[in-house]
């Protein structure tokens, strides 16, 4: 039903043509904005491409359940290096019997002599947890970091506890001459002698029992004070 146009005078009919297009455009607009049935929630959730597609979108394969591999690796290591959980409890923050900064600790090593000193820093980093001990040997100040889970460390014992809780997390001020404790060798030697006597009375124990005994002694020592 196109409007009749004059073939001889084509320009005269512009007005008619324009009106016709306008009307057509309005009609199309009406058509597209017609009310559509509302999609349900399930329908909208479906991955439905707007246009018809000839390919299928695959869902992702199931994800791995192991979200914290660092923890897994650390725990696997701890199971080998600290099977009795003795070291972890000795330095755990929740344990009231734990070793604290300011205590005198003795580290028995697999290779070489044991090293004892005042603990002036505890660095808690999972498997990399370390303690900083300070002592004076042959009148020279010596500081050593030990990784508490290192296989070279045979055992860690508390020789003497600090009477009052240290009010700092790191006692680096103890390096200064004013606060330096000096040598703690005498205290450690006395401790080792008393421990030797204790062991003599109780009978020689195996290595694992040894550590347990050390723990018991700690409790006793605390009760005395």
């Amino acid at each position, binding site marked *: 039903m196109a409007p009749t146009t004059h073939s001889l005078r084509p320009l005269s009919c512009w007005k008619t043509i324009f009106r016709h297009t306008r009307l057509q455009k309005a009609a199309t607009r009406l058509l597209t904005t017609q009310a559509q049935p509302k999609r349900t929630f399930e329908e909208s959730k479906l991955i439905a491409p707007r246009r018809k597609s000839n390919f299928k979108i695959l869902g992702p394969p199931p994800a791995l359940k192991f979200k914290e591999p660092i923890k897994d690796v650390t725990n696997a290591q701890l199971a080998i290096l600290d099977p009795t959980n003795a070291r972890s409890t000795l330095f755990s923050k929740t344990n009231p019997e734990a070793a604290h900064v300011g205590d005198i600790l003795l580290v028995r090593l697999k290779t070489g002599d044991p090293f004892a000193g005042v603990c002036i820093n505890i660095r808690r980093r999972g498997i990399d947890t370390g303690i900083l001990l300070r002592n004076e040997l042959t009148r020279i100040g010596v500081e050593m970091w030990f990784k508490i889970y*290192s*296989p070279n460390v045979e055992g860690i014992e508390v020789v003497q506890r600090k009477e009052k809780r240290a009010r700092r997390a790191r006692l680096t001020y103890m*390096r200064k001459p004013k606060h330096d404790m000096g040598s703690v060798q005498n205290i450690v030697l006395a401790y080792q002698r008393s421990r030797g006597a204790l062991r003599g009375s109780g009978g020689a124990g195996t290595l694992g029992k040894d550590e347990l005994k050390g723990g018991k002694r700690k409790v006793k020592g605390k009760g005395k004070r």
Partner: protein
Amino acid sequence: MLNCIDNSGAAIVECVQVMKMKRAAKIGTGSPPLSPPHTHADWCCLIGDRIIVVVQKQRNFGPESGPGASVSTSAANKVRRGDIRHAVVVRTVKKLQRTDGSVVKFDDNACVLINKAGEPIGTRLNGIVGTELRKMKWSKILSLAPMHL
């Protein structure tokens, strides 16, 4: 300036040269030697490194340090002030990490004088030394030391 802890006669010496640069290859750590050192840390010398020192202060032995003791002192001392000698570093303030993650740090820097052949000049040491000396083939110094760590 670092302490000298043997009985060669020197008390305080000054380091004038570090003779290493091939340290990595010497220990056999597998890492290639650091060709020209580019950071400050590479110039540092650690326990077991050989250095060249100048004796700055002599040690006085025995109680007889009155007048006329200077002759005996010079006789007892194997080195004199101003001597240029080789030495081995035995203690450092700089922290030194070991393979198991433990770290050792001393409160002073100290060395032991040696001759060109690498034998210690003194006969006794007074003071603790680092165990790294063994790894660096200085077992003789290690056996002289009263204690090692």
